[in-house]
């Protein structure tokens, strides 16, 4: 097996899919000759030609719409939105069209477009290069929503997304591109090569959409999270020396409710965490569902930790980011509740 960081793993996923299926095409801003601002598509235009890896105008709605038309005509487009913060001009084409085509045409015109986009903060990108908009898509019926937390999952999930017959929003936590991140910006950066999930097969494999994974098992409390926060949760549990079970949601839509429920029924305590704004975030759906399903097992209210209910401010990146401290405080409340 090879060592790959998340950029390489994603690149490899697309490479594998393009080699296997000539109908897979890529499109997006700066993704062709240049290989993308994060270099995720590096080398793919050289390899597959400029008719399969298309540079596009700076029009997110145009990119999504064109991808829809291509999919209806039998291609399998993978569109890149340069930052998740810039996906909103394409929101109408995603919400009103892409997500609803199969439904409104009673199955006749599905459009299996994959939309890849880097999300999340931690790179001093300010409020327009740091957002985590998963909740704004999870509420929309008809599009799957996925976020990996490591290179192995990233490749497997992206291949599954491209091969899926449904549209998929594929969110890439950019803070994890080069290495895991435990929430402490002061520590030296760690590369993926030092992490077991940095071992990634060269060839084809999938991580199925719709399945969460137990990152660490434990009996005292369940932490449900995804993306960068998976690593922060691990750090917090370590710091508190807590026997926490940590679940990486991976797919927000469809959601693997049973796995979450089984864990919380076992532990009786639950913390939900994400980087996005807390109010109305995806954590609300997780908490609401868990309390419905596990009410009689709960020994304390479900804790919800997220970014604050403000935009992501440039100067207060680490005060905004739900780091190990915020998690620890919540975990402590949770364990102390009687």
């Amino acid at each position: 097996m090879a060592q790959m960081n998340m950029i390489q793993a994603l690149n490899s996923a697309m490479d594998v899919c393009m080699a296997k299926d000539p109908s897979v095409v890529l499109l997006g801003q700066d993704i062709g000759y240049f290989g993308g601002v994060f270099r995720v598509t590096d080398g793919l235009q050289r390899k597959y030609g400029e008719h399969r890896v298309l540079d596009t105008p700076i029009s997110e709605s145009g990119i999504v719409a064109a991808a829809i038309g291509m999919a209806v005509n039998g291609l399998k487009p993978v569109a890149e939105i340069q930052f998740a913060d810039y996906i909103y001009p394409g929101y109408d084409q995603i919400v009103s069209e892409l997500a609803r085509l199969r439904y409104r045409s009673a199955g006749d015109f599905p459009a299996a477009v994959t939309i890849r986009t880097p999300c999340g903060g931690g790179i001093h990108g300010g409020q327009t290069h740091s957002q985590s908009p998963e909740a704004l898509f999870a509420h929309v019926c008809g599009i799957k929503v996925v976020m990996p937390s490591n290179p192995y999952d990233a490749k497997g999930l992206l291949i599954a997304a491209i091969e899926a017959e449904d549209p998929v929003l594929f969110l890439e936590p950019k803070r994890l591109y080069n290495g895991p991140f435990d929430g402490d910006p002061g520590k030296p950066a760690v590369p993926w090569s030092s992490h077991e999930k940095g071992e990634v097969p060269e060839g084809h494999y999938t991580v199925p959409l719709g399945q969460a994974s137990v990152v660490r098992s434990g009996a005292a409390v369940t932490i449900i999270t995804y993306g960068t926060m998976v690593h922060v949760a691990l750090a917090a549990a370590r710091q508190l020396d807590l026997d926490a079970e940590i679940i990486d949601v991976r797919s927000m839509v469809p959601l693997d409710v049973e796995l979450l429920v089984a864990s919380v029924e076992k532990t009786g305590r639950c913390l939900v965490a994400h980087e996005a704004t807390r109010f109305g975030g995806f954590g609300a759906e997780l908490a609401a569902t868990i309390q419905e399903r596990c009410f009689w097992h709960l020994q304390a209210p479900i804790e919800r930790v997220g970014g604050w209910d403000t935009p992501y401010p440039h100067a207060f990146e680490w005060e905004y980011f739900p780091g190990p401290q915020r998690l620890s405080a919540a975990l402590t409340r949770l364990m102390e509740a009687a």
Partner: protein
Amino acid sequence: MTRPSRLHVPHAPARPGQPPDFSYVHLSPAGAVARPDIGAPASELGPLSLELIRVLDDQHAAVGPWNPNLAIDELQVGLRWMVLTRLYDERMFKTQRQGRISFYVKSTGEEAVSVAAGLALKPTDMLFPSYRQQGLQFVRGMSLVDLMCQLLSNTRDMCKGRQLPVLYHSKARHLFTISGNLGTQCPQAVGWAMASAIKGQDDLAATWIGEGSTAAADFHNALLFASVYHAPAILNVVNNQWAISTFQGFAAAEQRSFASRAPSYGIPGLRVDGNDYLAVYAATRWAAERARRGDGATLIELVTYRSSAHSSSDDPSRYRPKDEPEHWPLGDPIERLKQHLIALGAWSQTQHAALEAELNEQLSIAWKEAVGYGSLSDGPKLHSDLMFEDVFKDMPQNLIDQRAQLRLEQG
């Protein structure tokens, strides 16, 4: 607000109580506009976007370089579909008034826009219509019963009850699912055309958008992507002068035609008499050949008039003169083609009456069959389980659970 406002506010040419005024519609005489080489560079085609391509003259003759020289039977086929479209519209509108269907949209006065274009294209060209081109459904061979079943949201509804009436589709007939969201289909059509080019297909994509909807950003996206990739697409702007109560000037056409939007993207724009069957046919053919040669997209503005209400929910007498339709300078597309055929000695009032009777009979038979498959209010109904299908390819657990919950609710 101390000084008076100097904002320019566009004014409809006439409002209720005022005399209709179409002096703002710039007309060219039939036959007067040159027909450039199909391969001519867009930069030389600017004038086509400001003049008006017309073939049928006031004496009902087909004149000038854009005459497509159709055979008599081709003309008769076109007339037949246009008449069917009109009769269908009238019948279905009445049906809505009687409460049998929830909503309807007529295309009265705009039949040439869809019928002529539909017949000028290949059956494998992909069509992305708006809600006002039912003629395309007919020329593509959709059955009356299938269309009516959609209107009724009944057990045979191709949309399984999920769409408002008139938002048809057919995969087999290359008719894309019609959106309730204005304009979205245009850049999708361009994406389809890009894929056609990538795959080396010979097929093009054609799309239709109302002039009011050209204000939507998606129209710009369509022009932009078509321009960058030379997509084999035809972008039709149906300028029927009105967008509900709002006249075309509010889509930025007080000073320039909609067709003239195209040359600024390096794409030819043709301004065409949309009530002239032959002109629509010829312009569509020109654009289609151009696209198939690899020369990219064309925008066609079809100058026409929405002679009926916007939809069954609308009452145009609130915002335009009652007699405005009669003053429309480009006449009626059916009447014009009919007179042309009569002038050619290939049609008569009697034949026309017989055609109408025949088609009305067909409509009656079809309607009888269609209502037999149910309607929103009566008869057999779609099973509500269907509501949970096709959200995704495979039904996820939450929808399985909700389906079960609904079954329980229903006892």
